[in-house]
């Protein structure tokens, strides 16, 4: 089960890896707890223990990297009411910044003072051949929406453009700094910029709004990552196909696919010459279909893409806690079988 980050790099160069490669944003505790015994984790530092738990999970399932959440201090404080018992929340709930006064009073996180030492501390647990892929504390658009509320932001884009400029600047400049810092670490092999831009039929902001407020920051983020000679990957959901060129001009890999918008098979056919297609088996499909169907679709996709490459197998979004482990493992098994590591992984799964 030897991990080899170069295999993922080959995919990101839009070439064919020597064996199937897996890609996931993150899984959930049901998965991590199946794979890792708490006794294996360092007891002195809870934050590092959490990160090592993920790292070992990714390793044991056959990935060549592990994703890494950003440090707590980098998150933009949410002043909205919390309801942790609930499953979902509304994109309108952020709405605390709707005036210059609120903008100035907001407790902006101090990015000049963030401790990134976890990127070194976890290296002793990093199996040979594996690298880290840090993700961001939300993306530029996501964070701005969380600060203003979606509908409020739409009104502000007409009513107070200067405030919108200031908001994107305040968030974007911090995220550029974050990626610049994390990309420079030796343990980091690539960075994941996570920013949901679309929904079922179009983008959440109009292309002209995106061009004015959003895309310049994504160009800067990818540049910050490229400055350390690392590939930049974008996780973005929804129907972003009309603005796909903006993605492929800045990023080496695109993650997130939905059958109701464009099935990953079609996305690969259309775009794999332009950008590496990462993940893609629709979350809804994985829940609704049988294990056998999930396995067969995943395997067919791996076989279809084997020669030309530019593809890594994964879910369309992430592995949410309502996606049963068996379905997730059925998808992975398609890659394990082709790599001849099923017995080895099954052993780790107990």
């Amino acid at each position: 089960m030897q991990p080899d980050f170069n295999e993922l790099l080959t995919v990101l160069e839009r070439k064919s890896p020597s064996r199937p490669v897996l890609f996931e944003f993150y899984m959930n505790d049901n998965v991590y707890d199946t794979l890792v015994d708490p006794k294996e984790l360092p007891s002195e530092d809870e934050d590092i223990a959490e990160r090592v738990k993920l790292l070992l999970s990714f390793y044991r399932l056959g990935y060549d990297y592990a994703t890494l959440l950003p440090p707590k201090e980098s998150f933009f404080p949410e002043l909205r009411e919390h309801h942790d018992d609930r499953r979902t929340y509304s994109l309108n709930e952020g709405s605390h910044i709707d005036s210059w006064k609120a903008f100035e009073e907001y407790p902006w996180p101090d990015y000049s003072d963030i401790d990134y030492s976890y990127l070194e501390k976890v290296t002793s647990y990093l199996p040979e051949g594996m690298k880290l892929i840090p993700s961001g504390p939300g993306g530029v658009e996501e964070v701005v929406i969380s600060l203003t509320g979606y509908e409020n932001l739409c009104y502000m884009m007409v009513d107070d453009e200067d405030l919108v400029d200031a908001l994107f600047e305040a968030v974007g400049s911090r995220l550029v700094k974050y990626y610049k810092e994390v990309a420079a670490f030796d343990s980091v092999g690539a960075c994941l910029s996570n920013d949901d831009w679309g929904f079922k039929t179009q983008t959440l902001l109009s292309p002209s709004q995106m061009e004015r407020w959003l895309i310049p920051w994504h160009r800067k983020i990818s540049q910050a990552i490229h400055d350390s000679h690392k590939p930049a990957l974008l996780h973005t959901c929804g129907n972003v196909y009309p603005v796909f060129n903006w993605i492929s001009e800045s990023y080496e890999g695109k993650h997130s696919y939905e059958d109701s918008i464009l099935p990953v098979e079609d996305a690969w056919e259309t775009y794999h010459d332009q950008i590496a297609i990462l993940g893609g088996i629709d979350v809804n499909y994985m829940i609704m279909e049988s294990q056998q169907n999930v396995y067969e679709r995943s395997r067919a996709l791996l076989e279809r893409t084997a020669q030309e490459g530019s593809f890594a197998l994964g879910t369309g979004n992430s592995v949410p806690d309502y996606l049963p482990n068996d379905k997730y493992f059925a998808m992975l098994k398609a890659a394990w079988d082709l790599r001849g590591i099923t017995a080895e992984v099954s052993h780790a799964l107990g």
Partner: protein
Amino acid sequence: MVDMNALSELLQRGKAKDVKEMTQQAVDEGISVQTILDDGLLSGMNVIGVKFKNNEIFVPEVLIAARAMNAGMEVIKPLLIDNNIESRGVVVIGTVKGDLHDIGKNLVGMMMRGKGLTVIDLGTDVAPQTFIESAISNKADIIACSALLTTTMKEMGNVVKAVKDARLDESVKVMIGGAPVTESFKDMIQADAYSSDAASAAEIALQLCRKVS
């Protein structure tokens, strides 16, 4: 004399203040409320709906236009009642139990209002029984459910079942939508209608109301 096309244009451009003023001017000039409603406000929203469905405009533009429509509606609302102008149908809308997403639901509600339907918005995290009670008390033609995750989408089946259990299935149609929802899921749970976008949802709702009543 206020030109209804001009009113519709202003609405499409999201000029809430101007729409309000022009609507008031039209009322003062004695133009019938029905004309202001149909040829000015709803006609403007109709264009917005078509453009949105064709991806010629985007949600932010829809929201701005809907805000302008509401500004005009506020002026004529009391007159609609005075003139006994009936709505074209009643829709009870909500995001299903366990789900708190509301952007899509709000848009569907706006577009339905833009078709002249009365929309009762129950908010998010709405239990099947709440849909039923509201449908009965408001004499609704349609229950419209929104959901964004597969895990909450399953609640829609419970709403369909609750409608049958309450023997409302003759008079109330169930419409469903949201990110993971598809036509085949609609068939599976035996709901009455599905659409992938808010503008089509409003068109279908209007057709269903015409059939129901």
